[in-house]
């Protein structure tokens, strides 16, 4: 079984090659649908789009730096119950890792999906993309890819979202197929690598010419990961200093208006009904005056620290660091930094890494008879 192949690029236009690849997947009936970031008619903004008709494959752009939402939610939506067909889902590595978490939380099923993920050079926040000059079409993507690849490591790209500057996962280990950009000459070919048996079968069926991965590729990936890891560790230290106790956390979250957008945008915060929108927090009016009398003064809205701490307790073990919480915050609170920093403690505590593998059960969904003896009893 071949594991590395290439897809020819015509006229040096590797972005249009995604349209050809998508169309080929549908025409050969290898899949019944594509789920991919796609420009909508007359609109220079990508959104995940579900495409069944090969004729309708137009304007696919899985490499666009626009990252409006974490598509893992949609992959889960398409696979939670039998979808009645096979879907090729183009996802970023952080979307793949979020999907892995959702699968383990029984919100999706990879059986009917082929996950295709390109090397991720990073993305930009919605507000950055929205205020960028010119059209945000494929030329915007091409300029971005060019700059990201030539800057050596993407950490130097000022426009990148904070989450991407500190992301040490530019490739998706859990995808079925990956599309290589790092260390690859993009002018005449896209590198396609199979990472699973399913991916290998798809690669064979596509009948693409096999090749070897360019020898600079692993070096380029390592270099990017090294730079991002260094940036990540600096971010951890800064966030630890900024949120090290609840007074500092209160400062950090001072502008929070309890809109809960971070929770809506979070791909792994999957509860249908969140406790914070239930009657539990629909306090009787007199309660507020009671609190204010007792404390002297209370901040309105209330329960802000409680909300964020509860979310940290509930989902930090599943946090993949995609940064959509920060992207969704109307007041630009650096939530991704807070979540990743706390997630480092909670995931390390269980020797777990969110999105790493389907076979590792989420820490709070499993237990053993003998474990964590140090948290039981009265000793230190």
């Amino acid at each position, binding site marked *: 079984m071949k594991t590395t192949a290439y897809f020819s690029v015509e006229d040096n236009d590797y972005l249009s090659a995604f349209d050809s690849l998508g169309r080929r997947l549908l025409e050969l009936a290898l899949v019944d649908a594509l789920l991919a970031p796609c420009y909508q008619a007359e609109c220079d903004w990508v959104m995940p789009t579900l495409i069944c008709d090969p004729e309708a494959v137009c304007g696919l752009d899985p490499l666009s730096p626009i990252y409006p939402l974490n598509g893992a939610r949609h992959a889960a939506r398409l696979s939670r119950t039998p979808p009645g067909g096979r879907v090729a889902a183009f996802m970023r590595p952080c979307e793949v890792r979020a999907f892995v978490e959702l699968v383990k939380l029984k919100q999706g099923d990879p059986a009917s999906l082929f996950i295709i993920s390109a090397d991720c050079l990073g993305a930009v926040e919605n507000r950055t993309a929205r205020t960028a000059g010119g059209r945000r079409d494929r030329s915007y993507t091409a300029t971005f890819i060019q700059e990201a690849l030539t800057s050596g490591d993407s950490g130097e790209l000022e426009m990148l979202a904070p989450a991407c500057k500190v992301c040490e996962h530019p490739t998706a280990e859990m995808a079925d197929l990956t599309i290589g950009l790092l260390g690859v000459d993009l002018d005449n070919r896209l590198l396609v690598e199979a990472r699973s048996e399913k991916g290998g079968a798809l690669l064979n069926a596509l009948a693409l010419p096999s090749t070897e991965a360019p020898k600079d590729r692993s070096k380029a990936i390592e270099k990017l990961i090294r730079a991002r890891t260094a940036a990540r560790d600096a971010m951890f230290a800064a966030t630890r200093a900024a949120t090290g106790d609840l007074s500092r956390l209160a400062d950090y979250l001072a502008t929070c208006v309890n809109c809960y957008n971070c929770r809506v945008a979070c791909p792994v915060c999957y509860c249908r009904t969140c406790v914070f929108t239930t009657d539990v927090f629909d306090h009787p009016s007199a309660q507020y005056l009671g609190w204010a009398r007792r404390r002297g003064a209370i901040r309105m809205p209330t329960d802000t*620290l409680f909300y964020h701490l509860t979310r940290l307790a509930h989902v930090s073990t599943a946090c993949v660091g995609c940064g959509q919480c920060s992207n969704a915050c109307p007041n630009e609170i650096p939530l991704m930094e807070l979540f990743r920093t706390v997630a480092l403690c909670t995931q390390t505590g269980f020797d777990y890494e969110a999105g790493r593998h389907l076979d590792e059960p989420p820490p709070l969904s499993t237990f053993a008879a003998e474990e964590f003896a140090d948290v039981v009893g009265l000793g230190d």
Partner: protein
Amino acid sequence: MPDSVTDFDPTLIAFVCNWCTYTAADLAGTARLAYPQNVRLIRVMCTGMVDPQFVLKAFLEGADGVLISGCHPGDCHYINGNYKARRRVKLLRELLTHFSIAPQRLRLTWIGASDGIQFAEVMQRLVNDLKALGPQGVASEHASWRPQNRRLQRDAIGSGSEVIGRKP
């Protein structure tokens, strides 16, 4: 009202399971064993139903310590609730540590239905430990936001007088 740090009267919120530790507390009561009044018992059907947010809420409301106590491993009325509680305590301790709340403020113990004496002893020991740790008032949700509250709190901790955000 306490007039020095050594007289500090901690508040301990204890989530106790109906089948073991609550029964032990009942036994301690019927046996007329004395234990500190600082403990506020909250009876739950199982330690496995204590959501992390209950513990966080207790700390944010100014509790100095939280105890989760249930059946010994293997004795859970619902087979495995206490094992789940143990994982949640592990998680919460990581979280509390990040926010500079001493992890010793959150305890998990197994106290069986017949361990009335042990219940009284554990409560005494926990309250002693909390007195040694001192007040945890800075973590209060309401107190954390306002600078004057923080100043009052600092003064309170410094002078050992009442910590704001705590009921007299």
